[in-house]
């Protein structure tokens, strides 16, 4: 098996190397790729869209249709993980710890449960000692990560960043919350239904903005038409359209990252995990 792999690898490698013979030299400004479409994007982006970050303007406006389907890919991943791993059947044994005495109680069959509160406390089978330092450090850190994530989403027009990066950072702050405490606290605080709704609402915001532009007479996703309903000056209307779209992308990516993490780490039971 390894021998076949080596043959295939060297064959593909050889074909690719043969092709690099007449590539344009690396980094010269007038290679076909740098002299055909991109001068228009670089020079006209400020006038047409009013957004200095060229990557965000091309991403959300010139090729905005691509990005909508990219958000649909992220939504697909979240939905796929939910469909594949989520199972609703009850767990057999439950572990409880009696807080005052520290006695651990194990129920073999899953039907009996104890009221979790002052007296009793859930315990995971792979019991992990909760370190106070990690808990308090994360409790302080998480709000600032989320603030930074919102900044990244909002500031996508002027500096590197945008919907995807901001959404991932916000999602990873929630994952940090799940790892620092335990998965049960995250699942209780952010219901699974909320995550499902957020992941769909984000893409709906994106497609909705496109649909509004269509209803207002332009083509799909043509932000220029939004001037008829939004009171902003036409020069910057496309920047606001892009901001709305980035917010939709951020919401979807945040929700999907948490859905994927929760489903993988708890094998779909949403009770115990890393």
């Amino acid at each position, binding site marked *: 098996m390894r021998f076949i792999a080596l043959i295939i690898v060297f064959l593909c490698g050889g074909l690719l190397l043969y092709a690099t013979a007449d590539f344009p030299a690396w980094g010269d400004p007038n290679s076909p790729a740098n002299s055909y479409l991109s001068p228009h994007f670089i020079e006209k982006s400020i006038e047409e869209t009013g957004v200095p*970050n060229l*990557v*965000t303007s091309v991403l959300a406006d010139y090729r905005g249709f691509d990005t909508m389907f990219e958000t649909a890919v992220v939504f697909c991943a979240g939905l796929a993980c939910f469909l594949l791993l989520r199972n609703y059947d009850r767990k057999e044994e439950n572990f409880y710890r009696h807080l005052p005495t520290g006695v651990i109680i194990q129920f073999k069959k899953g039907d009996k449960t104890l009221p979790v509160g002052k007296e009793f406390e859930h315990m995971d089978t792979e019991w992990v000692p909760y370190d106070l330092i990690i808990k308090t450090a994360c409790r302080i850190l998480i709000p600032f990560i989320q603030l930074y994530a919102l900044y990244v989403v909002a500031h996508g027009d002027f500096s*590197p*960043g*945008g919907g*995807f*990066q901001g959404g*991932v*950072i916000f*999602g*990873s702050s929630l*994952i940090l919350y799940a790892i620092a405490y335990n998965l049960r606290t995250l699942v209780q605080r952010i219901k699974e239904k909320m995550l499902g709704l957020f992941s769909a609402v984000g893409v709906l915001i994106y497609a909705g903005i496109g649909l509004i532009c269509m209803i207002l007479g332009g083509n799909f996703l043509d932000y220029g038409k939004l001037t008829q309903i939004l009171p902003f000056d036409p020069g910057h209307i496309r920047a606001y359209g892009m901001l709305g779209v980035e917010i939709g992308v951020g919401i979807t990516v945040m929700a999907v*990252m948490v859905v*994927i*993490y929760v489903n*993988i*780490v708890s*094998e779909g039971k949403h009770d115990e*995990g*890393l």
Partner: protein
Amino acid sequence: MHWQIDLIILTFTIFCALAAITVKDLLSTAILFGAYSFMMCLLWAVMGAVDVAFTEASVGAGVSTVFFVAAVFRTGRRTKD
């Protein structure tokens, strides 16, 4: 000065990729995989692709390493080859 940095990062990237594949324990593969993504992010930052580097840092090094460790936590850690 530019292409020296490039070369150092390139060698680190290839080293991380090869190590991530040959090492036997999956958790160290996860760490090497995170290091590989971070090296790629550095490479792109050097090449001027700041948006792509930012995404790769947050998505590649960040979240996919967390998914990887979560999956290894749920499956086995040892590998035979």
